[in-house]
C-alpha cells in the first residue's frame, strides 16, 4: 500500500520517509523536524530563489519539501560551494548549507511564478546551465509509478542533484520507500551498501550496472532485486541480457529521459530500444516522431526552459523537442544509435568535444587539439584527443602536464583517457576540423 501524504505535499510525504546512510538510519521524525526548522527560516524568502549546496540526499529531500512549503524556488547545486559571482548572477537570495543552515545573501527579485526546482547542470570551464522544472512536472511520472508500487528500498546511485537522482529520491518519497545512500558514491561503497542493506529497487546507468556486476561477482545474485532500471545511456542487449539472467524475478526496464525532455517513457519489456508502434500510439502522454533519423518528442513533462541560456534551437516551429538522439527501425523496434551532434556520452555524463578542446588549447604545450569519442566496453565511450604539441616540448612531459591540467579543470568523465600526439590534424574542405563520428 502506498502511504498517501495528508495533502500530497512533499512535506507530508516526509512523514513516512526513511533514509539509510552507511553510518545509520535517518527516520521521518528527524526529517520532518529538519523540514519544520527549515520552513520557518525560509518563510522570509518566500517568492525568492534559494540555493542548496548540501550534497546529502536527505538534505535534498528536506530542502525540496521545505521550499515547496515556504513558497521558494530552489536551486540544487552539485558542489558544496557556489562562486560569489554566480550567486549574484543567479539572483540567489539565500544559501542552505550542509548543516541546513540558511545564510542570507542579498535581496533579489526573480519575478517568481510558483515553486520551481532549478538544477545547475555540470560545467566547469563555462557557467553551468540552470534547467528549470516544476515540482508537478517532476512528480508527474513519479505519481503514476507510485500507484503501482509497493513499499520498497531504493539504492541511490546518482548524485541527488541530478535529474536521475531526483527521480529516485522523489519516487522513494512518494511511495514511502526507504532510500539507501552513501556519503561518497564510489562503486565499492555503493556495492557494499547494496550487500549490507539489500535494496529491492536500483536505478542506474548501464556503466554503473557493468561496474556493479564486476565488483560484486558471484555475490550479485544474492541481492533481492525486484526492479532494475537503466537510464542515461543506451541500454544495449549485452547488459540487459546479463541482468535478466542474474535477476530472473526482477522487472528489467530502461527509461528514456533527459534534463531537457524530462522523463519521457520507460520500456518495460527488458529489450533494447522501444516498440515501433509507439510512433503511432504515443506512450505515457508523450508523442514521438522521427525526422531525418533523429527522435523528436512532444511531452507534457519537458523542462520548462534554461533560465540563463537560450534554448530556441531545440524546439521545432510546430512544438516538437529535437532530442538529438539518432534512431533506426529494426523490425518492430526503434533502436537508439547515438547522438546526432558530436556530444559524447561517457558513462552517462554528456561531454561536448568543444569544451574539452577549449581547455586543451588554453595550455601552453598545445598548438592544436581535436577531441572525439573512443568506444569502450565499460563506459560506452571515453574521451580521446589528438594533440599537436609545440615543437620544443618533450612528449612524455607534455602528456603528464596536459593530463594534470585536464584533471584539475574538467570533471572526471570529461578528461581525455586516450591522448595521441600527432603532426597535424585533418581539416575538411570547409576549413573546419574534421570531426570523427
Amino acid at each position: 500500500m502506498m502511504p498517501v501524504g495528508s495533502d500530497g505535499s512533499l512535506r507530508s510525504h516526509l512523514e513516512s520517509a526513511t533514509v539509510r546512510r552507511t553510518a545509520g538510519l535517518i527516520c521521518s521524525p528527524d526529517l520532518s523536524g529538519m523540514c519544520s526548522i527549515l520552513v520557518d527560516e525560509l518563510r522570509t524568502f518566500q517568492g525568492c530563489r534559494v540555493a542548496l549546496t548540501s550534497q546529502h540526499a536527505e538534505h535534498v529531500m528536506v530542502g525540496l519539501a521545505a521550499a515547496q512549503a515556504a513558497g521558494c524556488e530552489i536551486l540544487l547545486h552539485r558542489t558544496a560551494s557556489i562562486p560569489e559571482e554566480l550567486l549574484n548572477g543567479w539572483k540567489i537570495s539565500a544559501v542552505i548549507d550542509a548543516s541546513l543552515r540558511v545564510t542570507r545573501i542579498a535581496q533579489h527579485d526573480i519575478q517568481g511564478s510558483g515553486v520551481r526546482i532549478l538544477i545547475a547542470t555540470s560545467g566547469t570551464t563555462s557557467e553551468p546551465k540552470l534547467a528549470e522544472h516544476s515540482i508537478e512536472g517532476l512528480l508527474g511520472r513519479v505519481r503514476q509509478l507510485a500507484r503501482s508500487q509497493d513499499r520498497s528500498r531504493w539504492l541511490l546511485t546518482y548524485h541527488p542533484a541530478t535529474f536521475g537522482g531526483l527521480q529516485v529520491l522523489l519516487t522513494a518519497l512518494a511511495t514511502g520507500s526507504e532510500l539507501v545512500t552513501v556519503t561518497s558514491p564510489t562503486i565499492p561503497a555503493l556495492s557494499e551498501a547494496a550487500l549490507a542493506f539489500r535494496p529491492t529497487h536500483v536505478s542506474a546507468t548501464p556503466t554503473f550496472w557493468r561496474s556493479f556486476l564486476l565488483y560484486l561477482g558471484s555475490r550479485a545474485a544474492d541481492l533481492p532485486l525486484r526492479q532494475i532500471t537503466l537510464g542515461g545511456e543506451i541500454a544495449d542487449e549485452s547488459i540487459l541480457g546479463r541482468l535478466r539472467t542474474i535477476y530472473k524475478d526482477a522487472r528489467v526496464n530502461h527509461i528514456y529521459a533527459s534534463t531537457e525532455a524530462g522523463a519521457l517513457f520507460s520500456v518495460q519489456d527488458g529489450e533494447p530500444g522501444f516498440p515501433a508502434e509507439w510512433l503511432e500510439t504515443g506512450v505515457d502522454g508523450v508523442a514521438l516522431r522521427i525526422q531525418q533519423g533523429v527522435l523528436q518528442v512532444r511531452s507534457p513533462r519537458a523542462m520548462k526552459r534554461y533560465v540563463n541560456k537560450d534554448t530556441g534551437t531545440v524546439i521545432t516551429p510546430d512544438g516538437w523537442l529535437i532530442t538529438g538522439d539518432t534512431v533506426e527501425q529494426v523490425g518492430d523496434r526503434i533502436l537508439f544509435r547515438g547522438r546526432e551532434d558530436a556530444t559524447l556520452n561517457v558513462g552517462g555524463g554528456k561531454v561536448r568535444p568543444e569544451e574539452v578542446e577549449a581547455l586543451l588549447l588554453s595550455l601552453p604545450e598545445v598548438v592544436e587539439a581535436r577531441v572525439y569519442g573512443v568506444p569502450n566496453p565499460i563506459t560506452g565511450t571515453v574521451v580521446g584527443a589528438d594533440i599537436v604539441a609545440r615543437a620544443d616540448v618533450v612528449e612524455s612531459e607534455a602528456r603528464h602536464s596536459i593530463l594534470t591540467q585536464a584533471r584539475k579543470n574538467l570533471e572526471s568523465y570529461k578528461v581525455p583517457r586516450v591522448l595521441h600526439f600527432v603532426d597535424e590534424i585533418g581539416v575538411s574542405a570547409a576549413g573546419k576540423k574534421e570531426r570523427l563520428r
Partner: protein
Amino acid sequence: MRVTRNQLLERIRTTIERIAAEKNLTVPPIAEETVLLGSTLGIDSLDLAAIVVELSEVTGKDPFQDGFIEFRTVGELSDLYRDKNGE
C-alpha cells in the same frame, strides 16, 4: 604484436600505478588476485575504462567486440588479452 602474460600483467600494474599517482593515491602491491574495482586500489569505472583502452592499444585486440565479458581481478583482465594459442 605478441605480448606475453607477464608483459600484460606488468602493463596493467604500471597503468594502475600511474592512474593512482595522478590521483595522489598510494598504491598497494598489485597481485593477480587484486580486485580491480575493489576498495583497495581506489580506481573507478573511468579509470578501468582507461586501462582497457590502453591494453587494446598495446595488444591490438578488442576482447569485448562481441559484447561485455565480466572480469574482477588483474589476472582475469590480462587473460582476456592473451593470445589464444598459448605463449
